[in-house]
């Protein structure tokens, strides 16, 4: 688990409500209002998308909504910056492949 529950300076972490969401069809849990990227990282997801031309993996890079490396398909909309988009209960997140969803074989 890579969540920091207690910090020497910041103290105990106050989390929002625990909610379920879907990552490429699989159910995961996160905290309401935290960036989607944080919930994914807590669940061990490193790859957010593949580039269109060379099919190279990309993940979080700047974490402040500037670099657009972490964009994914959120509720059917592509190119959503997951590092600054708050998690909502029931959200459907998909790995982006170019500008469409990656086909996931179950």
């Amino acid at each position: 688990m890579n969540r920091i529950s207690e910090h020497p300076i910041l103290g105990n972490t106050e989390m929002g409500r625990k909610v379920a969401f879907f990552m490429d069809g699989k159910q995961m849990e996160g905290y309401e209002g935290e960036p989607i990227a944080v919930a994914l990282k807590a669940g061990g997801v490193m790859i957010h998308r593949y580039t269109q031309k060379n099919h190279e993996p990309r993940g979080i890079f700047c974490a402040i909504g500037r670099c657009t490396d972490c964009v994914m398909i959120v509720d059917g909309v592509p190119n959503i910056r997951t590092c600054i988009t708050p998690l909502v209960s029931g959200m459907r997140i998909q790995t982006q492949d170019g500008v469409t969803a990656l086909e996931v074989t179950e």
Partner: protein
Amino acid sequence: MKRYDLIVVGAGPSGLSAAIEAARCGLTVAVFDENAKPGGQLFKQIHKFFGSKEHQAKIRGYKIGETLLSEADAVGVKVFLNATVSGMYMDKEILVRRGDAMEHCKADAIIIATGASENMVTFDGWTLPGVIGAGAAQTMMNLYSIQPGQRVLMLGSGNVGLVVSFQLMQAGCEVIALVDASPRIGGYGVHASKIARCGVPFYLSHTITKAEGPDCITGVEISQVDDHFTPIPGTQKHFDVDTICMAVGLSPMSQLLKMAGCSMIDDPRRGGQVPLVDENGETSIPGIFAAGDVSGIEEASSAMIEGRMSGLSAAAYLGFLSEKDKDSSLNELEVALNSLHQGMFAPGSKGKAFTKTDEGIAVSQSLLKKGYLDEADIARFNHFDKKSGVHPVIECTQNIPCNPCQDACPKDCIKIGKTITALPRIDADSTCTGCGMCVASCSGQAIFLVDEDYEPGYASITLPYEFLPRPQKGDLGTALSRSGQPLGVAEIIDVRSAKAFDHTTLVTMKVPVAQAMTARFYKREAQRAEL
């Protein structure tokens, strides 16, 4: 179209400071920021700030952020969040994107305080997931309480690289190594020493030659570089890491100023494309000001002063403040700003290699190359008559703008004087009571209390500790040297926490008297077995 007296772009330290000053003078002020939360990078700064009282030294960055927000609220500053300013046009008109809507707003004066963005360097594999900016690491661990990685390699030894490395360890991550292509550590020696004494190695004159991994980082290869920063074949070293963090400088985000037609210059010392500004931050266009990192990369303390100066200047420009009142306020702020602009790390000193301190003492080369002082260096800087009993040992050997230790001591034991970049001196005539206020007040964690006469054959050493779990009285662990090398068994004889220490725990350990001047950190029992 919405109209204001003053529009500020950016709700970070300089923008908020500017807005507060202007609103206090009676201006209607709107602040626009593209982020969901105000405060810029302040809420990610969990270390104690440097400077002196007027710069809010020894207060942690996020606390300063909270104060700024409540001040802005109290004086009626309107802060618009999730509001991206995407254009600035003639006659001080701006275009703001809020959600799916674009809005035009206009003001009689504009202050641009957009800050800076992180630089990056490219190497084989640098786009792999797991390669992140140092700012990203801070955002993840300090705002969203998630570890950026388990095993991290930091590239860049400037203050950002050093401070973030320490914060990574505070978040429970392991920092495997700190790498910099420069032959010298770029940031404050005291920041480097905090990391070195935990055992983190520094690789100067090295750079990353390869980030390894099939689809995310599993390792990194570094190589030594020659005088032209070219990797030397055959010098490769490999580390198993899951995260590579880059702290390789910042660039001003000055696009809006350029767009509005302000005269720009390319100034590497200030970080790149910056506007030409006068001493109060006014650009070549009357009524348009720039404050903080956008007009030259520095740090939050000077950004706040620059912000206040531009806020007052904007108020005077619009007739809300008399020239006389403006001048007297600005003079005071200029003195505060100048005091930050002194010493070895002053903006004007960038790239200079100092061989001596202002006091004429030869600087520690070990500190610059390895991150810690060697024993020979200590003797040069701690020249005081050893008395019996507890006394402070101050390992602050560079001229940096900081003086909280001087005010911290209730016995006036520590003297810096008016020039805040001067090295602290210990007054031999004062008697140390061992209260520990100096230890907790030192933003660089460079003050220790040493008692060579604690018990026959044993000395006590009190050190600042900001990790979890905190040691407990009676614990047995390992004393570590300044380079993080194990010296032997240490017993914890006192653990002190107090509100005045602000989350810094003072840990006192008992070590053989021969280690009184070498033991500077403590490793807990649980970790001892791994040694």
